């Protein structure tokens, strides 16, 4: 049996498709990991489940770390920064500074410098890196 499709039916199908597409976009957004805004006035980078917030201050630098939206204890981890400023490259060891914060005092990072934060996880072997450009 042949069935004719009316313009009205076509339009209804099209609207249904749009609704489905929007719904799928909403589902996708729901998969986001942790915050997507910096909480300490720094630069935020998301790497998989981990979020790294780098705070370059006048006389020190901070790194705040979360895992899937949860604060992780910096004392259980290790972190260091590799800073490339023009042609100069330097490494800075960070020390745990309570909660999910790392810190290095007496460090000033210039604008435009490229910074890689390397975090060594609790197993003392696995590493996760985040790249920043200081603005």
């Amino acid at each position, binding site marked *: 049996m042949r069935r004719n499709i009316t313009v009205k039916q076509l339009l209804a199908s099209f609207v249904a498709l749009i609704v489905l597409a929007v719904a799928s976009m909403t589902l996708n957004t729901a998969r986001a990991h942790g915050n997507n805004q910096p909480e300490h006035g720094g630069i935020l980078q998301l790497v998989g489940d981990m979020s790294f917030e780098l705070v370059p201050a006048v006389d020190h630098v901070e790194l705040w770390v979360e895992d899937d939206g949860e604060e992780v204890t910096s004392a259980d981890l290790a972190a260091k920064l590799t800073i490339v400023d023009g042609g100069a490259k330097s490494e800075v060891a960070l020390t745990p500074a309570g909660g999910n914060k790392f810190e290095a005092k007496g460090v000033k990072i210039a604008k435009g410098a490229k910074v890689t934060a390397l975090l060594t996880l609790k197993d003392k*072997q696995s590493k*996760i890196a985040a790249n920043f450009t200081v603005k």
Partner: protein
Amino acid sequence: MNRLSSKASTLTRNPLHKFLAALAVAACLVVSYSVHAHGIWFAQRATQLALLYGIGADDLDSVKRQSMVQSIAGYDTDWKPIPTKLRVAGPLLLVDSESQPTVVTAVLFNGIWSKTPQGEWLKKGRDEVPNATTSEKNYKYAVRIVGPLSGPIPPFPDQTLQVIPVGTIPQLMGKPLKLRVLFRGKPAAKARVMWDWLNDPDGKPVKTAADGTVTIKVRNQGLNVITAIFDGPSDEPTKADKMEHLATLSFVLPHAPE
């Protein structure tokens, strides 16, 4: 005659079934070739970078092949070496670098293989399989761009065969990407390049031009593993007719913000 033998008899009599059977045999031959042409590449596993061995969706046991890995190296943005090693973590070989590398490379020697007239690959040289239809010595190379890059990638000392991007890698799939394949640091003409070693391992390779270049489309908005295969002269003619070099270049295009 029971039902099974009756069916078998029908299979051999029906021309369509004969054709399908021939097709199946041909497919098996293709598969057996593919199984032999394994490669190594780098991919992320549970946030860590792993060295994998296999083809297509088959990433096989890399840990048991660790002794075949001849080199593993990491380089920073200025292409200075970073101390890098492999460590076993469960069934994986993970890359362990002292600092975050910009590029990681590896070489695996896969031994000498000979193909018998019956189509079986044996891990022996021509000296042990004199009637082999072909005997080859196999080297696998891998380069992973971790990034970010600050300039063109140089030829690395351990990569006898290497795939190098010419210009910037586009950040969207479907865009053209020009590559140059180098053999011993020089352009390799007629190297067979495959745009997606993982998702299209049986795809038709594209051959490089005289200057070693080829342009492909970036296949994936995610992990891309591009492969080049090149046959070079044998350094042990009594054991192998040729040396097959298989090199991968892997990189990741970022997905949209979640």
